[in-house]
């Protein structure tokens, strides 16, 4: 298995290099956090919004952008395409689960993105010293771990939506819906503590917070003590749920696929 992964990662890295311009444009297309930052800054001109002064917003969105690059996933669209065009068929005939190919390409892509992003982040803090902050070792380490898990949750739940293409031709719309809910409840439109309390309460149980916001909250010290562990527990719960659901949908879906035409 490790051998297979090494080979996959090598090929994926070559592919990532091949698509570097595209990836760069995709990164540039992440304008929404910047638009929202601009809007919040314009609100914060008259005084702090909630607990957020302008520098807090800058800090918040910088970290959101970083975590987002680590956790981004487009696997649902890939699966949708492969299922729709029948590209999945030949892959089913290889003695390796087709999902591993997607995992590998996402991982290779991470390396590339981070390499580009870190210098930019450094520049932001250089030119905007008010946004600098310090963080202890423990929250920092936990943030790294939860970021990795956040990627897992996002990848798995997104895959599940892609797998719905086995039954419906509309999974792309569902992916869009899911994405929109994530934008709203994951912490892009607004830091979650600026949302109404009732929404935050529901958001606690949904997967979206655990795909982006949680690591950001941990780094910024916005979630501590019991709430912190509740968050981590929920995140792990969603990871497990995503995994089980994926297994189930894959099993049913492939069976269905081979019943109606691959």
């Amino acid at each position, binding site marked *: 298995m490790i*051998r297979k992964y090494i*080979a996959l990662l090598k090929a994926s890295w070559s*592919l990532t290099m091949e698509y570097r311009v595209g990836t760069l444009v995709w990164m540039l297309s992440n304008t929404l956090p910047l638009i929202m930052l601009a809007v919040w800054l314009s609100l914060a001109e008259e005084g702090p919004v909630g607990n957020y002064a302008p520098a807090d917003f800058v800090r918040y969105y910088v970290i959101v952008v970083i975590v987002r690059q680590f956790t981004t996933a487009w696997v649902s669209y890939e699966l949708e395409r492969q299922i729709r065009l029948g590209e999945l*068929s*030949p892959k*089913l005939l*290889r*003695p*390796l689960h087709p999902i591993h190919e997607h995992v590998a390409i996402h991982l290779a892509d991470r390396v590339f993105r981070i390499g580009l992003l870190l210098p930019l982040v450094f520049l932001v803090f250089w030119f905007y010293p008010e946004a600098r902050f310090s963080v202890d070792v423990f929250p920092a380490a936990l943030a790294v771990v939860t970021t990795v898990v956040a990627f897992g949750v996002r990848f798995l739940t997104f895959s599940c939506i892609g797998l719905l293409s086995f039954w419906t031709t509309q999974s792309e719309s569902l992916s869009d819906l899911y994405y929109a809910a994530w934008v709203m409840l994951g912490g892009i439109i607004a830091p979650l503590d600026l949302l109404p309390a009732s929404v935050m309460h529901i958001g606690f149980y949904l997967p979206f917070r655990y795909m982006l916001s949680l690591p950001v909250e941990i780094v910024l010290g916005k979630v501590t003590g019991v709430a912190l562990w509740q968050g981590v527990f929920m995140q792990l719960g969603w990871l497990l749920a995503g995994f089980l659901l994926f297994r189930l949908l894959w099993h049913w879906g492939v069976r269905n696929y*081979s019943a109606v035409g691959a």
Partner: protein
Amino acid sequence: MADIDIQNLCKYYRVHQKEPGLAGSIRSFVARRYKDVKAVDDVSFTIARGEVVGFLGPNGAGKTTTLKVLSGLLFPTAGEARVLGFLPHKRGTDFLRQITLVMGQKQQLLWDLPAIETFLVNQAIYEIPATAYRQTLAELNELLDLGPLLKKQVRKLSLGERMKCELAAALLHRPRVLFLDEPTIGLDVTMQTKMRQFIAEYNRRHGATIVLTSHYMADVTALCKRVIIIDHGRLLYDGNLETLAQRLAPYKIVSIVARAPLTRDQLLRYGDVQEVDTFRAQMRVPRGHSSEVIARLLQEIAVDDVTVEEPPIEDIISEIFLAGGVSS
């Protein structure tokens, strides 16, 4: 035991029926009608180790569906298929390691990378030991002349070059059973010939079992001793390519060269006249009566030469498909 064994195989699909025109479209928008299509309908055959079998039929006859059932992509509606003793649709690792499916219209190579990258991934996926990999690659290289192609990006290869790499990628793990769906589609004539030679050579060297579908009769006549013909999901013929004509064509071709100029009307009483060209003529004569017709013809017309031939296989097959079945 046979490598491939299918018994009473059936595969049905449910499709929605379209109606023409705007009114029809709106009607089907509101209420849809469905119909079962029998893609494969009660087909049975067995194929022994090392056989090369041509699978013929017009578009939509059920060839690809059958290949997909055999390779494990589809599970049968009814009946049973066994390949190398496995149930294909379980897609067990041991089964997958021993087969390969090549589709002329679909590709597994990574489009934006050189083919060698896909080869390396396949080496890992099929767990091919390094020595075996090198050996196989060297052999494929020799047979297909891959050398300069491997380092070029797949999207920059011509169709023929891509197909070579596609085949090589599909054969790296030395499968015992090959399913080739239209492997020569879109290739030019020289390339088709090369592909055929390669497939024949691969079969000779490794004794692999090969099932092949193609639109080009030449593929089949060059490679297969045995053909299986299906149409509308039903098995029409399974047997030797050479005896196909005797079994399925209800006529023989009689060509004559006469001493006096011939007219069409004059010949109509002997058979179905295909062409008349002053002294020469060609006609179809019912198989059972051919000797009796020829005897009569020799008595009534002064001829220099008479030949009786089996009709060309291409013609027989296209006629079968036109008629939509065998008239027996």
